[in-house]
């Protein structure tokens, strides 16, 4: 049976994305991954962390970025500026920092004791007189382009980036600027190495079609259902690089209520489940009220957040090309990187940021929300390795998409375009 045409069709708004089936090869090919590294990951802005992680001079963190063939040190100097350097000693190339983060007066190589100041200048060489004509100014750490947007630190390995970070982000995210990222200072992180292509994995996070099935035991009831019973996005935006989806929640659920914890909202009555069914969730909401150091009245959010102004809006999914997923809600946000390691392997670098809780009840509520999110992520991750293995059988050569899976199509199209442009420039 053929259904009536959808008046809100996203595909009709973006005819340039076409309607053809999507080939599987880019998701299983080692050669294609090499092209992605060369023409995308080494040419564009890559998110590595938040400025709040390194508040003081000498604070640093290290990021392993396999898709860029790099390990970098991001460090704040004494004047407060943040810089990035390759984590490679100029002497005989040892990694300078082995750990993940810390505080240092100098960056010190454990191999032969060479040391660098916080701006990457070589300042200490044991037995320096034994080197013939060593010029310290030629032997500093190798800098990496670094820019900051709304407190998010990005690096770029291109020799001369073709776009500034703002030029890259503002066409899609200019009207998200002003979201209170800096107030969300309680961050929980998890990580996993998953045997799945990074694009295939990201695809599982940029459509809501899966929610009724993958999340049928947990939060499916927290999203607003369409007449057909599925979860459809309120709207979607496809840009030159980036993409966005806006989702509605069920305001009667704890998880899907964006205004939970603000004092004006009563605990849910007539909720989606009988009170005796989920007493812990209800207790979290009850004892958490008023426990947050900071809450955002929804009408103060920047206009690009909940851009359809839907009354039951729950969250916006923002995929910042290539591999950074940011889901914005009024009272917290999620930030996931899908960092490629190989054509069939990625690091899931997942974080959620909440406002600090000042009361025990608030902390209990935050733990409830965080654990629920983590378990939902375990559901999201559950299909990925099976999905990759099934793709690799080549039993099927193409995938077929429905209208609301347009972000899968958009991601494929942008990656193809950039690889094509990159190869044309080289030719």
């Amino acid at each position, binding site marked *: 049976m053929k259904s009536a045409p959808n008046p809100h069709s996203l595909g009709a708004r973006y005819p340039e994305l076409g309607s053809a089936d999507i080939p599987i090869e880019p998701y299983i090919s080692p050669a294609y991954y090499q092209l992605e590294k060369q023409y995308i990951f080494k040419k564009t802005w890559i998110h590595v962390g*938040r400025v*709040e*992680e*390194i508040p003081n001079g000498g604070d640093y*963190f290290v990021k392993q970025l396999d898709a860029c063939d790099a390990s970098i040190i991001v460090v704040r100097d004494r004047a407060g500026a943040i810089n990035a350097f390759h984590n490679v000693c100029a002497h005989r190339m040892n990694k300078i920092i082995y750990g*993940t*983060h810390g505080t240092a007066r100098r960056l010190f190589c454990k191999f032969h004791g060479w040391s660098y100041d916080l701006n990457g200048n070589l300042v200490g060489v044991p037995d320096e007189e034994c080197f013939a004509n060593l010029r310290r100014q030629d032997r500093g750490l190798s800098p990496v382009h670094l820019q900051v947007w709304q407190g998010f630190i990005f690096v770029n390995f291109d020799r001369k980036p073709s776009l500034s970070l703002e030029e890259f982000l503002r066409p899609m995210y200019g009207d998200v600027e002003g979201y209170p990222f800096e107030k969300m*200072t*309680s*961050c*929980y*992180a*998890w*990580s*996993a*190495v*998953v045997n799945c292509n990074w694009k295939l994995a990201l695809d599982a996070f940029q459509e809501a079609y899966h929610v009724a099935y993958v999340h049928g*035991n*947990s939060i499916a009831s927290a999203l607003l259902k369409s007449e057909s019973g599925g979860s459809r996005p309120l709207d979607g935006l496809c840009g030159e690089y980036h993409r966005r989806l806006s989702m509605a929640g069920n305001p009667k659920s704890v998880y899907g209520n964006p205004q939970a914890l603000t004092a004006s909202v009563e605990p849910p009555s007539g909720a989606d489940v009988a009170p005796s*069914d*989920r*007493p*812990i*969730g209800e*207790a*979290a909401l009850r*004892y958490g009220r008023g426990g947050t150091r900071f809450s955002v009245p929804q009408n103060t959010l920047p206009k690009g957040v909940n851009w359809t102004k839907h009354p039951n809006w729950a969250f916006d999914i923002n995929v910042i090309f290539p591999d950074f997923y940011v889901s914005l809600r009024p009272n917290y946000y999620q930030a996931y990187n899908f960092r490629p390691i190989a054509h069939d392997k990625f690091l*899931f670098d997942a*974080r959620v*940021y909440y406002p*600090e*809780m*000042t*009361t*025990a*009840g*608030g*902390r*209990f509520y935050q*733990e*409830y929300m*965080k*654990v*629920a999110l*983590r*378990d939902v*992520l*375990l*559901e*999201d*991750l*559950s299909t*990925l390795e099976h999905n990759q293995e099934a793709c690799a059988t080549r039993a099927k050569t193409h995938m077929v998409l429905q209208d609301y899976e347009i972000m899968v199509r958009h991601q494929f199209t942008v990656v193809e375009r950039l690889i094509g442009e990159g190869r044309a420039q080289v030719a």
Partner: protein
Amino acid sequence: MRVVRKSHDQMAMNESIISSAQARLLPGGFEDLEPFAAWSLSTETERITRRQTSSFEEIVAFRNAILPYLERIFSYLEQKPLDALQPPDRRLLYLTLSLAEIAPSVEYYRQPAVIEGFNASRFLPVEDSPLRPKI
């Protein structure tokens, strides 16, 4: 192995040492929760590990024991600033964080782990990440 017979007095004394040591784990007034003190764990890694290695019956017993005390726990703890809680008070708070940990087990999945979920031991918390709350 030779069985050492202890005198009645000695055994009674040992029991009283054990019970007074146990009584010190949680603040006064929450003695009924002492049998569940093993759920008082300071990190998410420990809490999810305990959840994953407990039977569903053990999880439900813990839920049933602590749920009726939540009102008293939070009215007691909220007299004090969160960042200045003493060890017994902290342990009481950690019990509630374990309750949050097992909430999906009893309220979503009806079993300890996520149904057909990704292996939780491959997706562990980064406990030392810089912005993680101290409690």
